[in-house]
């Protein structure tokens, strides 16, 4: 655990634990998220990454420990609370209607309207132009906003979701395995948007099992293994190969090797 001389973190976790009955899903996790920085949460399958997200997004309440949003302790009863507090989660299934056009998806649930009541209508022009300019700001160029989201590539869809979260005033952006289903090139595209979102002042939590994706974009790395923290590192304190070996269970592997050689 290293000390980072950082500005006031936007989101801080203190000894978060979560138990489901006798099962320990998370135990004593601490880290923080700074505005404009990317915190990566790394872990293999079953490491507790999804529980971590669900606590953040307000789906589960932590069993013990607390988290502080801008210095104040908060609890979220529903996902809506979390969203209203400025924590936007981009799930793997992306929360989009695949047959709906890009701009309709962009404003889904928060449609701009114009006109008096009986004629109040969806402000299509505003929605289109805003969606386009917001996507452009993120450096996303979608040829035709009228095309259904389902026709976009996985990377483009992720980037639309990120741009949407940014536009609707998220302070913290949680990305759940945004690159896991993507090819190398597409992953690169998404990583660029991750950095772009951080550059625009959001605190980003980037959840992944791929250290090669995490290392180039992350400023801080939280490693999880079977619900426990393997460490919370600043980028300056850890190199990629160390990260990789930790992720791949390098320590355990070394122990195993040691044991085997002893036995011989």
């Amino acid at each position, binding site marked *: 655990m290293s000390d980072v001389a950082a500005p006031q973190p936007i989101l801080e976790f203190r000894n978060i634990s979560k138990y489901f009955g006798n099962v320990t899903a998370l135990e004593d996790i601490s880290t923080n998220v700074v505005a404009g920085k990317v915190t990566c949460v790394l872990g293999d399958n079953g490491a507790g990454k999804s529980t971590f997200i669900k606590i953040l997004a307000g789906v589960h309440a932590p069993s013990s420990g607390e988290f502080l949003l801008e210095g104040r302790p908060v609890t979220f009863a529903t996902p809506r609370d979390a969203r209203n507090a400025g924590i936007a989660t981009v799930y793997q299934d992306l929360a989009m*209607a695949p047959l709906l056009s890009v701009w309709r998806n962009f404003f889904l*649930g928060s449609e701009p309207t114009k006109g008096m009541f009986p004629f109040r209508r969806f402000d299509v022009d505003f929605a289109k132009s805003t969606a386009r300019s917001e996507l452009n700001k993120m450096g996303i160029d979608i040829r035709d906003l009228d095309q259904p989201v389902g026709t976009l590539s996985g990377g483009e869809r992720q980037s639309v979701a990120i741009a949407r979260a940014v536009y609707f005033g998220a302070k913290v952006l949680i990305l759940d395995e945004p690159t896991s289903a993507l090819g190398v090139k597409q992953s690169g595209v998404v990583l660029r948007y991750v950095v772009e979102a951080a550059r625009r002042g959001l605190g980003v939590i980037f959840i992944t099992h791929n250290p090669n994706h995490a290392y180039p974009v992350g400023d801080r790395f939280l490693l999880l293994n079977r619900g426990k923290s393997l460490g919370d590192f600043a980028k300056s304190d850890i190199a990629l190969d160390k990260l990789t070996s930790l992720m791949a269970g390098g320590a355990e592997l070394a122990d195993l090797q040691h044991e085997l050689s002893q036995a011989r």
Partner: protein
Amino acid sequence: MLVTPEVGALIGAILVWVFFWSVGTNFSTASGTASYLDIAAPLGIMAVAVALLMIGGEFDLSSGVMTGASGILVGLLVRTFMGEGASLFLAVPVAFIVAGCVGWFNGTLVNRTGLPSFIVTLGTFFMLRGANLVFAKRLSGKVLVDGIDEGSGFEVFRKIFASVHKRPTFGSRDALVLALVSVGAVALSWGLLELSLVRRNGRDARGVLFGTVGLLLTIVGFVMLLRTTGVSANTLWGTVAAIGLIVALVGLARAFFETTNYRGTSSLSSHGRTLAFCVACVAAACAAAFVFDRNEPRVILSWMPHPLRLACALLAAAAGVGLVVRRWGATLRQRTGGPGLRGTVRFVLLALLTGALFVVGTLSFFQLTTEQAMRAIAVVALGAVGLLNLLRLRGKVAATSKGDQLIVGVVAALGLLALAFVARADSSAIRFRTGLFTAMVIMSALLIANTVIESQHVKRTSADLAADRRGRRAVAIGAALASVGLIVRLFFTNVPFRISILWWFLATALATFVLIRTKYGNWIFAVGGNKEAARSIGVPVDRVKVALFVTTALAGCFVGMMTTLRLTTVQASQGIGEEFEYIIAAVVGGNLLTGGYGSAAGASVGAVIMAMSIVGIPYARWNSDGRFIFLGAVLLLAVLVNNYVRRKAQEAR
């Protein structure tokens, strides 16, 4: 833009119409139209409501029986309180409230239990069906309830729900229709051009679709033109054909040529000879009409047997085609740097297009081996060569000077106009010449519109929202004007029409507005497309679903009122089995059975298709029991076409 859910249905409706028109005798008359619209109206109102529900991802099997139940309820109230001055002013609102409650019950149960709506509404269906029988029998001892006309206020409600209207024709009707349709067509094509200019990058497939639809329209229009007699019918079909032609030309041209740059420097001054040649061609075409003897049908190849004469005629047409294709083909090769696969495809398509033009042109002057026909060919061939080259020249000079483009475009339009007047003075067949004249006049108007647009706009490579908006407005205005024209043509014919048609139009318009222009529409799509996503992003999924079920039930009640007040009696079995017809109409109209995609207008068109099938079969003097075979086939075909259209929509860009 064009790849919307209702496109497939629209094409299907046209095909079904043409089919019945060609096999039946009175199908296309005003009374035939009235009889299928009469069936389409209640079906359409229900189909629209069911389509909204289907887009929201649910079904309502109780919607059919609801039409009966609401009628029974009104009958019940009127009969029970007969002594105390039974009033429909009370009974009808009560029926609507009860229907709303049933819809609310359906929706809430689906939300609470998470059961498929198929099961829940099947339950409601049986309950309502049973209730209908029980109450009808208890009340009147029969399986029907009558005497609704004895309640007070019957006349008022009958006026609202089931009145009959008859409008006499008036003198300037056809002129009005023509004016509306042509202005509408101009606005429509202007808008489409604007829109097609906007999305230059992703427009190829759309252009092709455009072209195909246009070609279809052209063929239908011309075939109709040849079959019908009478000025107004010809006007109408001439217009259809002309619009189709423009759409086809514009669509194909945009799909195939726009992105490639014209080579070399081309200003008007370096094309003076071409311009002169073109103008000469048009002038010669005009002159040919007067030089040759018009009134004497002298057959010049009379010694030939008839098939051979026909062959000669076709060959003559083919020669003309070949000539044009060669010119265009040379340009193509030059532009693409060798024929290649795409070049070949373009070539074939162009050949087909020009071929269609020529065959239609030639066949229409069918006494092909008379001197008169020779003149006709001369007019058509010279005129076409001149005009096509003028259009090509217009494209060429556009690269360097917008002013030159405007000049050439106007020259071409004037040439077309001149030919139109020649054609009018020329042909002895009145039905033909009127249609052709109209078509050509409209074409020249469109040509000017097109030229003005193109000369004003710089080629855009990215989207221009203002132009997009302008285009959409123009399309909407054009479509509205043209439809008003057609409606005027349809209704002012001394044939009685029911007010239900008006309600149907209103329901479709309202549902379309809600669906694509309000946030609720967005929610409906999202709820059907990805319920969990919609919920997680803050859409009140449960409320949307309940609202949709209530809407469907209210629509059922509305249609029930229409039927009840029209017949004054209600069968206990009224509406049973019709829920599937509503669903079929919605599906035929391009609505996705699993939700998240579709349109209200499509459902209406689907209802028209079904109504045409139901009415058309007896009109064709076939066994009307066979209509179910036809309906089944239509359903399957429609779904296949819709799937295709949707796939195209998704891969096109």
